[in-house]
């Protein structure tokens, strides 16, 4: 039984509609509005053309990290990845355009090239039940790893060393290079984008936070999909490759695991793909606990970074930066606190609040575990906005390094565009607190208002839903207050 068949079979025949459902949000199809955009996305060369420039930049960055100056803020590897790319990713791409980064990401390029043996064209043929010819071993990814736990642990591990990672160009290059290599090797052995779906450490938070995004790719009319015999979107055809992300868009309800590769836009014979603009935080369903834990990990990391990177305490910085300070004992204390808060303490506190929620709702038929899982959704708007608030200072304080590093990418004293001597200059630093306050309050607002949808799904009546929401709103408020203390207290 192939995963593709699983997904098609699981397609529900009767849709259960809840009174207050997230699908009642207004949506506008960009592809209908803009025939030009549609033509661009339908072009076979589209993805290659958008990846290509990134691949070149990526190449320069890896080289710069390896041979350029070890001083982070003078090396393009650090400045472009950890200031420019990070800010664009978390503050613009994820909230407004879902996983658009995955559309242009160069990491899976060589792996996919190997599997397809084609840059632009499509191969028809047969690979298990797909109608595309694909190269490589095409093994099936083990079921017990078909979740985001590898990404959770991988991301947490990487982030434990972040003080080193974001300040040492060499380390950044090695990590990026390793990811590129891993992406390629996995693609040779396993089928399609298993690296993206299950391994890539960036993927985990992209999937979680893209739920909040104001953009989505969906089938325009699910009934058309039900009647559709071709199923080119998931099985491939002469116009497009089968979905490399194992998604069946015919019943896809969430952004999480759609990498916006746009293959289905090309392969759907019924012209049934829509690229919708929608309100922020429109999808509110967490499917499994690995996703919940991604939320906790991200929240704990945002807090840890606020203390280590934006905080003032030198001892903590020395602990996190043990490879230079030599304080490995401190490093283990810091790592221990980080891991236990991400995996035990914060989820534990949340579990207590979930229990309170159950008690206050007065509904007995729902388990605390279900409540815990369902409400962990509020960590999406809460965490995403906290991350954006955290990232604003990175960009506004250190963004001027982008200008100088462009002229001297390796830190070798070049002056390509005459801007190499541009001095470090924080941009409006004294107003960042206001921005952060607003961002945090927006996150809190979405956590509470969307939390109500979750609560209603769990408890089924308005009264119980409101009562059950109160403790969760309290949790969200506490988290928001903690960030306020870090940022402006």
């Amino acid at each position: 039984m192939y995963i593709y068949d699983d997904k098609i079979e699981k397609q529900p025949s009767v849709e259960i509609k809840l009174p207050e459902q997230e699908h009642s949000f207004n949506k506008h199809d960009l592809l209908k509005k803009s025939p030009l955009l549609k033509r661009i996305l339908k072009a076979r060369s589209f993805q290659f053309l958008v990846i290509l420039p990134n691949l070149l930049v990526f190449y320069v960055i890896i080289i710069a990290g390896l041979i350029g100056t070890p001083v982070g803020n003078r090396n393009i590897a650090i400045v472009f990845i950890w200031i420019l790319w990070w800010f664009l990713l978390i503050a613009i791409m994820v909230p407004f355009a879902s996983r658009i980064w995955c559309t242009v990401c160069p990491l899976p390029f060589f792996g996919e090239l190997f599997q397809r043996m084609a840059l632009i064209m499509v191969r028809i043929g047969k690979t298990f039940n797909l109608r595309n010819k694909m190269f490589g071993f095409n093994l099936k990814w083990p079921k017990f790893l078909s979740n985001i736990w590898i990404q959770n642990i991988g991301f947490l591990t990487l982030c434990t060393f972040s003080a080193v990672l974001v300040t040492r160009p060499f380390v950044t290059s090695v990590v990026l290079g390793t990811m590129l290599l891993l992406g390629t090797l996995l693609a040779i052995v396993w089928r399609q984008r298993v690296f993206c779906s299950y391994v890539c450490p960036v993927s985990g938070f992209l999937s979680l936070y893209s739920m909040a995004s104001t953009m989505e790719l969906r089938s325009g009319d699910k009934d058309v999909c039900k009647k559709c015999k071709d199923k080119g979107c998931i099985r491939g055809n002469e116009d497009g490759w089968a979905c490399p992300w194992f998604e069946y868009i015919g019943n896809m309800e969430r952004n999480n695991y759609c990498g916006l590769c746009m293959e289905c836009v090309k392969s759907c014979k019924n012209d049934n793909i829509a690229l919708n603009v929608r309100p922020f935080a429109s999808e509110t369903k967490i499917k499994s606990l690995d996703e919940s834990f991604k939320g906790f990990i991200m929240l704990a990391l945002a807090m840890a970074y606020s203390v280590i990177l934006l905080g003032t305490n030198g001892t903590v910085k020395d602990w996190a930066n043990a490879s230079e300070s030599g304080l490995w004992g401190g490093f283990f204390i810091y790592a221990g606190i980080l891991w236990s808060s991400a995996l035990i303490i914060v989820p534990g506190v949340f579990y207590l609040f979930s229990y309170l929620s159950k008690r206050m709702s007065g509904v007995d038929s729902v388990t605390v575990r279900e409540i815990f899982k369902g409400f962990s959704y509020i960590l999406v708007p809460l965490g995403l906005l906290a991350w954006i608030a955290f990232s604003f200072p990175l960009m506004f304080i250190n963004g001027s390094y982008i200008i100088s590093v462009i002229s001297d990418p390796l830190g070798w004293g070049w002056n390509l565009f005459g801007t190499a001597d541009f001095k470090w200059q924080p941009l409006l630093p004294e107003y960042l607190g206001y921005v952060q306050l607003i961002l945090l309050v927006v996150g809190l607002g979405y956590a509470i208002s969307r939390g109500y949808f979750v609560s209603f799904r769990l408890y089924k009546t308005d009264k119980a839903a409101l009562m059950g929401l109160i403790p969760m709103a309290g949790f969200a408020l506490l988290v928001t207050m903690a960030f306020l203390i870090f940022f402006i207290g």
Partner: protein
Amino acid sequence: MKSKYIVLPLLITIFGSVVGFVSGGGSSKPIRRDIVVKARQYSYEPDRFEVNHGDTLHIRLVSLDVMHGFYLEGYDLDAEIPANLKTFKIRHPSEGFNWKDTSEIVIIANKRGKFRYRCSHTCGTMHPFMQGEMLVNPNILFNAGLGATVGFALGMLGMIYFRTKKSRT
């Protein structure tokens, strides 16, 4: 139906911010404060100090290892602190790179809130994250912000209560 109840969180948010603003404490008599800030890789000592609005601050800067900077946001001040010297250079960023030698900075804390001082001279790996905080009390943004946040959360719950109450009847 939606728009009507949005007024509620708005009102309570404003109420909360006013409460926070007012309860933040009145002004105390301005005094002179002498502060020595020692810079080292990658932090300052003290890493945070509190003063009151109107105080006159006499700040001396020393570096314990390599050359560091001291860019105080909100007060148009930047300094370059050579290692192990009593004097250092300061400039006002709004006037460009017009450095002057000095042994003491004198500023009047006439802006309220939290102001960070950051290293402005590349001093090593963690340099971009080297910073400290000067708190000029009362911290209006924080007090009002905290009040507003609590008010907002209550207001949101109130809004949901009224909205669903209407849909029930």
